[in-house]
């Protein structure tokens, strides 16, 4: 694709990729890239079955640090690239903004802006919150915050939905003193008092210049609201926010979570179902799925378009609510989309799928590993000729969902898979093996000795902090992290780094946005459709 960062960027990034990969597949540079791709594809910032949240965060931070120190220009390009995960974009932007940009042909500021522009709103605000918490305040940060917030067409809605986070970001950009000045001036303006030339100058310099051509009066009112000016407000959303404190129904124009928050504070006698009823038409895509159980209990019908969710989310929903025909249809559609991007047409694939107890995930992300596994299975089924599907552990129910349980015994499954004569064996699992540990590698080694040359690769939905990346089933089995299907390109690049560096270079350029993407746009769209999902924490 034609990069928006320009041909100079393409050349810079291409040179960086060549330089990094020239050191050879066993070099420290390639290991650094591999570790970065692992966390980019697999990090969630949450605890896993095996590791605490803190351990995961340290792993993630170290991988970002090493990659940025290896080649900052390449790091910036990767973070801003179209295939990067939101969490990696968020962490990457934080890291880049926290230290001065290097002299480079790459416009790092443009890369940061591009990365931020692809973030969901909660993630963007989490990033700004992290910048405030870490006291990262420089001209780049101030410009970024003011441009993206005050120039946003949805500023009024954001103001009532993310009031506190927006206020934190703006106060960080302006500083406490200027924020106080602006609050005072805007309060006077709202009350109809005339402003002095100096005050108008302040508003023009600090607010109006960042609005990007939008109605400055609207932006000023939103800023006044966010900084705590008493009003009165004329914008419907801002007015509704105030009125809902005394009359819940007056807040029907507000987002669900905002009105629910006001109900909890000012109308505790009103059932939550009333809020659902009032706001059901304006629920976000993510909320529609999340509130299904609540809505059912409250006898409120909330329509949900299952085709707008990614496969992992749909499987998690199915575990909670059952694998209905609607969900199965949506999963099939998703599988076709992702499968088409696998570019594996005609390849005979054998799948080894881990259903053991540890695939149940952690308390904070229950069942996510098995959901990823099932979604990947579907994608391979749709996009390749799957000649074998061998589960080790797990119990399938009548609907087809596989519930994690039992020990991890992949060896028999490996032999069964190899016996089908596939072109490629793909293992999907967390890499922990215990019946006994090491048997998989022993068996694969023995198979090689018997002349079996079938490549075996491993996609791992769980980061293992104690290994510094993902847990492998043996040194001879390339492994890549994979948390969501949109990261399949990152995972493929990670695997190719070990087995085909030349192909990996091409893929790395695609990830950095200087070559055509492999995945269809629909895959990336999955992320955007869940824009208002509960945010994850940004790593330190």
């Amino acid at each position, binding site marked *: 694709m034609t990069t928006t960062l320009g041909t100079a960027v393409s050349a810079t990034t291409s040179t960086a990729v060549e330089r990094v990969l020239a050191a050879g597949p066993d070099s420290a540079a390639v290991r650094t890239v591999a570790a970065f791709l692992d966390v980019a594809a697999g990090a969630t910032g949450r605890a896993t079955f*095996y590791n605490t949240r803190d351990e995961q965060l340290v792993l993630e931070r170290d991988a970002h640090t090493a990659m940025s120190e290896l080649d900052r220009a390449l790091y910036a390009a990767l973070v801003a690239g179209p295939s990067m995960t939101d969490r990696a974009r968020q962490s990457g932007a934080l890291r880049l903004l926290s230290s001065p940009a290097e002299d480079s042909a790459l416009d790092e500021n443009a890369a940061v802006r591009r990365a931020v522009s692809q973030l969901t709103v909660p993630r963007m605000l989490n990033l700004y919150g992290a910048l405030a918490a870490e006291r990262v305040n420089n001209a780049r940060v101030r410009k970024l915050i003011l441009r993206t917030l005050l120039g946003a067409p949805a500023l009024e809605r954001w103001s009532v939905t993310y009031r506190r986070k927006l206020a934190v970001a703006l106060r960080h950009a302006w500083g406490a003193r200027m924020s106080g000045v602006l609050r005072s001036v805007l309060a006077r303006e709202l009350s109809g008092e005339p402003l002095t030339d100096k005050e108008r100058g302040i508003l023009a310099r600090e607010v109006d210049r960042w609005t990007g051509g939008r109605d400055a009066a609207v932006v000023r009112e939103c800023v006044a609201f966010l900084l705590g000016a008493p009003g009165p407000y004329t914008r419907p959303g801002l007015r509704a926010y105030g009125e809902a404190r005394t009359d819940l129904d007056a807040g029907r124009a507000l987002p669900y979570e905002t009105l629910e928050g006001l109900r909890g504070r000012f109308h505790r006698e009103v059932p939550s179902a009333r809020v659902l009823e009032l706001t059901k038409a304006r629920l976000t895509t993510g909320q529609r799925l999340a509130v299904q159980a609540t809505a059912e209990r409250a006898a409120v019908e909330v329509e949900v378009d299952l085709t707008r969710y990614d496969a992992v989310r749909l499987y998690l929903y199915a575990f909670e609510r059952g694998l209905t025909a609607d969900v199965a249809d949506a999963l099939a559609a998703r599988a076709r989309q992702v499968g088409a991007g696998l570019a594996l047409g005609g390849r005979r694939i054998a799948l080894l799928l881990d259903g053991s107890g540890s695939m149940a995930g952690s308390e904070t992300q229950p069942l996510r590993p098995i959901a990823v596994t099932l979604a990947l299975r579907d994608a391979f089924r749709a996009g390749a000729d799957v000649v074998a599907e061998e589960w080790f552990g797990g119990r399938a129910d009548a609907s087809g969902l596989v519930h994690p349980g039992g020990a991890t015994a992949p060896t028999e499954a490996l032999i069964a898979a190899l016996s089908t004569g596939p072109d490629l064996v793909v293992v999907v699992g967390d890499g922990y093996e215990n019946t006994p540990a090491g048997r998989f590698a*022993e068996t694969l080694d023995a198979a090689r000795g018997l002349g079996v040359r079938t490549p075996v690769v491993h996609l791992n939905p769980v980061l293992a902090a104690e290994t510094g990346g993902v847990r492998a089933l043996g040194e001879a089995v390339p492994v890549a992290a994979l948390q969501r299907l949109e990261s399949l390109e990152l995972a493929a690049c990670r695997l190719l780094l070990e087995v085909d560096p030349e192909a990996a270079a091409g893929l790395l350029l695609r990830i950095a946005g200087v070559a055509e993407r492999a995945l269809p746009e629909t895959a990336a769209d999955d992320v955007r459709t869940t824009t208002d999902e509960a945010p994850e924490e940004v790593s330190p």
Partner: protein
Amino acid sequence: MRNPFARKADPAEVTAAAGSATVAELLGGTAPGRVQSVGRMQVLPLLAGDAPTADLGDPRELAISTDNYGTLRFGNGGPGVALVPCHLAVIVPQAAQDHAMPRATLVAPGTQLAYTAAMCVQQTQGGLIRSGRHRLAVLPPSLREAASDLPAAPGYNRLWPAVSAFNASSGSGSVADLIRFLARFATELDQFVAEFELVDDQIGAVVLLDGQVVGVERAPSHAYWRAMWEPLIRFCYGAEAVRREAAGVPADARTRVPLGPVSGGDGADPLALLAAAVRDADTREQSLAEAAAAEAGARTLLVGVDQRHEDTAVGQVLGDTLVGAYALAGDTPVYASLTARAAAV
């Protein structure tokens, strides 16, 4: 068949060493599952099948605190009697002195029990544990042995010499503070939790280190086992495995069977040959683990009854090679938590 646990006609006859039983009798009805082997540790799951079970609560639901140094207080808000597991350790992030139990005990429903013979495992930390649901742990084997050999009588500092020796043997200094060991080897201990998985119907396990049985665990219910698995594997047996690594104890793979050489030829299907070789290695490893478990199962132990609540009894187990506690529902063993004496391994 004799029942060594048949209740005496007169409760007054019940004493601390009322009779003898074998380990196998304590595990009655359970069956071994597929062995899991990682590093120097092996876990032979015990499956309940038709074995008797009993609802003796969920230890995670107990409200636990310390009233003073040496007294652990347990609150049982549940509807049935609750079993406090043998050698339970309460490790809290609060600035409070962590404590452990020398025995198992019962807490009647809806009551609180102040156990005055508890032991401090953190010499250098003062403060009392605030009441709440705390993370559970089980003492490492050498501390369990020491705790079992000490009388269950007040004396909060009586385990300090054993804790000190345990720490010293792992290079963690000689202060009687178990947290120093746990903090130093936190990552390695996490690893042990990671490596072994619960299997369907599991209610207990025989744990082997370096080919020898170091623990025999049987819970009264599946739920109880799920609650105690992590405390056991991380703090008890995992801790001992880590200590051995730190102390430079050579690993002994006597019950491990690597995949032997597999040669093709004669037109045989190489993958069929490979499958047969894997089956053979796995079968032999299973047999070796089961044989070690069976040998432990034949050992005779002294069993007594220390405490009763209605039809449930709990008592200490003492043997030449294993120590711990057990519990009865009626006359039927439903709980055993035994660890090997150091001299026996």
